[in-house]
């Protein structure tokens, strides 16, 4: 049994496409990153799994239960953090978390333990919290009842780097105890630290699902060099572009040491090594795939 399994899941908002024929399988115990640019269909997929919206066609199960028929049962075992957190403004953090905990059969919850880890002030009113702090409340709320599956929609946006680190540590610890984690992000470099597998969604369709290891080996760096450089002649250089100011720009997935050695023998003015945008990675990733197919 898969923890999440979707079969040609499709959602149209009137004539507007949300997602189309999404097929995903999430295994028990894994951390799955759901990656795509804004508007790609990440939230639509997640909100369909939670039955906040109804699929136009296709079906899906969560923990082996039908997302529409057994929605209530499913929710006993999942924790969800929405992309845009909205909570009852006039409540204090403690009141909200207690309200949340009362929905579950289990009397055991972890309000004080979790809020301590996140450095959360329980006595503050929700309306007085910063966006980052609201997000923290949301995360604690999702973890409170020890869910079997965590569904997190853009969990890291709004968190400062330090908090993000804490958050990832907690997720890893939860995962070690058996919690399956499904989370979306538009930032691949953020996700790659954490995920076992990633699924890439664009324009409502899944482009690729891949083990993080395999993807990493194919990941590109974006290199920019200004100065007199001759042909580098290295494996793994793609899409060389020369800008007006003489700067050369290319994507590189070869051995970075070889590149540095080559460069050390020439005189350059400046060097940038950057993470390419998601779009760049996958556009070129796919071009490469096609190349290989042609060679075969």
């Amino acid at each position, binding site marked *: 049994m898969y923890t999440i399994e979707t079969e040609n899941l499709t959602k149209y908002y009137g004539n507007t496409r949300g997602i189309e024929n999404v097929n995903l399988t999430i295994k028990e115990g894994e951390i799955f990153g759901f990656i795509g640019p804004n508007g790609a269909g990440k939230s639509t997929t997640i909100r369909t799994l939670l039955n906040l919206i109804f699929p136009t066609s296709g079906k899906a199960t969560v923990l082996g239960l039908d997302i529409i028929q057994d929605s209530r049962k499913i929710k006993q075992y999942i924790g969800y953090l929405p992309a845009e957190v*909205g909570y009852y403004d006039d409540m204090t953090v403690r009141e909200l978390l207690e309200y949340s905990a009362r929905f579950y059969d289990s009397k055991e919850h972890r309000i004080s333990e979790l809020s301590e880890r996140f450095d959360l002030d329980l006595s503050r009113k929700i309306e007085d919290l910063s966006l980052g702090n609201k997000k923290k409340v949301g995360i604690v709320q999702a973890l409170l009842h020890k869910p079997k599956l965590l569904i997190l929609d853009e969990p890291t946006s709004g968190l400062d780097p330090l908090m993000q680190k804490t958050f990832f540590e907690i997720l890893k610890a939860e995962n070690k105890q058996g919690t399956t984690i499904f989370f979306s992000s538009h930032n691949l470099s953020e996700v790659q630290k954490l995920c076992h597998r990633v699924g890439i969604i664009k324009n409502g369709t899944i482009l690729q699902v891949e083990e993080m290891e395999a993807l990493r080996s194919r990941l590109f760096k974006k290199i920019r060099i200004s100065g007199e450089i001759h042909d580098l002649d290295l494996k793994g250089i793609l899409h060389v572009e020369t800008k007006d100011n003489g700067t050369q720009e290319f994507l590189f997935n070869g051995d970075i040491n070889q590149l540095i050695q080559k460069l050390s023998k020439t005189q350059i003015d400046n060097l940038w090594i950057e993470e390419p945008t998601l779009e760049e990675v996958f556009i070129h990733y796919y071009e490469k795939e096609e190349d290989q197919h042609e060679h075969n």
Partner: protein
Amino acid sequence: MNIIKHEIKSSRKTFLVWTIALSLYNILIMSIYPSMAKEEAAMEELLSLFPESMIKIFHLDKLSMTDPFGFYATEAYSMYILFGSMFAALIASNLLAKEENDRTIEFLLSKPITRNQILTSKLISYLVMVTMFNLIVSLATFTTFEIVVGEYSKEIFLLLMLGPYLAHITFANLGFLLSAFVTRRKSIYSASLGLVIGLYVVGIIAALSDTFSFLEYLSPFRYLEAVDIVINGTFDTTNLLILLIVNILAISLTYVVYNRKDISA
């Protein structure tokens, strides 16, 4: 139970303000009654100065201002039924709409509860609040009647309290139905207030104009006129039946619509 407690707690301020205001209004109006009753001649002179349409709206051709029920019917009843309906429609429609407006519905629907359970909890919440509101205002009015009137028909008094209650429940259910469609806070406020005031005005137009008298079937206010209660000493059975159907339809439609709707992001 969790949701019901939460809702009643978070609506308590609105509830208190409206309950106190309407109670005070009824107490105040009935406290004036003894002095009005004494000045019978002056009252009649005053009434003769009223335009005919006013007389018609307040049914002063059929009711006497010097009679306690006649006085209550003209001075207090219509305000109580109108403002109470506003309160009921606002409080009921807000319960669902605010969850979507504030995005808290994503929180609520991620809990192990069905949409039906959410609806039923909200339904019970506003029924409790509207009932409490009516009980308190009626009790305040009853006390005032006991003090300033003395002898009067308890049965008619009860009907005069029950009429507004039926209207309030009806408008609460209609507001609830509206909130299955309209979820922006500003829009749901204007929609539910507009519904109450709109149907009130329709009722007045139906009363004033013979051409538009057919409109009276549209306005729940016309089904529960104080003048009919005071004169007939009972509700019209057909009217009650129509109200019952309207209420059942409104509630069922809310459940049907809400169970199928996509929660807006």
